[in-house]
């Protein structure tokens, strides 16, 4: 589903590359934690999957496509196969919960009647049934993140990318979000999640890829958070 082959990414005007000869393969339906301290290259890793950046060297394959051969105008099609969740939720404050989720379908040209059928289903899935008409400001942080997950998942993507989705949430709310991501993973969706949250990684016991200074220093099948010494 995702394959990085000897990927190096250097940003202009920086001495050290953000990713240094990274090779990682993620199969369909896997759940992978990406851990590492700030600046270790987690965000660059995720941005490469979305083709927001292109690697300096090496190749990135996502959903069977070589991203370096993907033409500029096909990038939107790639992004429709990937759902994204962020630490800061990124909801539109002047739209209701329903409209926020529907927005993701409207802008890719889905029909009205289809939107009206699918959005309530996905709101039900994330546990927000009955809150469709609320504005994001009226919701708790955990609920806002559920809206964001609903938006990421409403298009039934093959991959969900989560960049520190629990970073702004308290531990008990985080557990709820992780259960939700776990449920999404069980539908066969590949999940890649970057996180700092040791408790979550340790409790989930999923594959852990640790980055340090742009290199993969650990790739463990049922790993824990702890830094390798």
């Amino acid at each position, binding site marked *: 589903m995702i394959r990085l082959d000897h990927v190096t990414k250097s940003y202009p005007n920086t001495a050290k590359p953000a990713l240094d000869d990274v090779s990682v393969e993620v199969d369909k339906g896997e759940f992978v934690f990406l851990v590492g301290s700030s600046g270790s290259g987690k965000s660059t890793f995720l941005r490469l999957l979305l083709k927001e950046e292109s690697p300096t060297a090496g190749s990135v394959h996502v959903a069977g496509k070589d991203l370096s051969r993907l033409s500029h105008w096909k990038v939107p099609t790639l992004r429709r196969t990937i759902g994204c969740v962020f630490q800061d939720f990124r909801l539109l404050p002047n739209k209701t919960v329903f409209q926020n989720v529907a927005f993701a379908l409207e*802008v890719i*040209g889905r029909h009205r009647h289809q939107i009206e059928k699918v959005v309530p289903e996905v709101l039900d899935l994330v546990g927000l049934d009955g809150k469709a008409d609320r504005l994001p400001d009226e919701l708790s942080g955990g609920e806002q993140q559920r809206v964001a997950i609903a938006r990421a998942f409403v298009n039934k993507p093959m991959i969900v990318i989560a960049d520190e989705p629990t970073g702004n949430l308290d531990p008990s709310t985080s557990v709820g979000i992780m259960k939700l991501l776990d449920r999404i993973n069980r539908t066969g969706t590949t999940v890649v999640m970057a996180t700092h949250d040791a408790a979550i990684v340790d409790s989930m016991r999923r594959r852990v890829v640790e980055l340090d200074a742009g290199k993969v220093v650990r790739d463990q099948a049922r790993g824990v958070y702890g830094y390798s010494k």
Partner: protein
Amino acid sequence: MRAQFVLSEILIGLRRNLTMTVAVIVTVAISLALAGSGLLLRRQVDLMKGYWYDRVEVSIFLVDEVTEAQRASIEDDLQALPEVERVEYESKDDAYERFKEQFKESPELVANADRDALPESFRVKLKDPEKFDVVASAFAERAGVDTVLNQRELLKTFFRAVNRIQVATVVGSILQLIAAAFLISNTIRVAAFSRRRETGIMRLVGASNLYIQLPFLLEGAFAGLIGAGLAVGMLALLKVFLVDGLRQDITFTAYVGWSALWSVVPWLLLLGVGLSAVASFVTLRKYLRV
């Protein structure tokens, strides 16, 4: 997307940024009005050329002491020239009558003029006005001829002055158009910044570039269209007040009419909308990177 929805989105976008929008519309209007008056001036010049060049003649003025025989031989030779279309003789009396008619607004000038003061002449109409040299070289040195005058030369000086005005309007309009393009680019930049949250999410969920950029393009094009509309209005006012005013005061020439105005309208609209769309597009490529 329904047309009404698109239109209301455009209006919301333009209102959000009202001062910039007004600046864009005014700049586009002025630049296009200048461009349009440049085009109309060109039409006017062409009209005047056609009107006057049809009427201009070569005048061969005769000396006072010209003999009957000299006059007759000049006339015969003129008639024999293949370049000549028609020859008219104007006696001293004819010349005086014409002078009286031309300056009837200034009676004191007419009163002071001596009936004998004006020379007699041949008015020669050429088949091709460019062939003036043939006539001039053949008759300038002839006995009985005083001077050979080409009226066309006088007109040329006038048209040269008009041409300079025309160049000035075109240069002015180009400068204004450049300013308009920068203003539009700036407006789109501000609009893109104020909507970066929406566009960011759009990119993330895989909206196509066209879908993301179209509202901005339409906003720019719409402002350009309104500006072009205003420019057409200004040109119409110019026609009604300036040209039609002149038509009353100066009657001896042709003037541009409504049809000339309508013929430049499509160009102005095209220029206004096209300029805005191109400026928006270039800006978006830079500020709405996918």
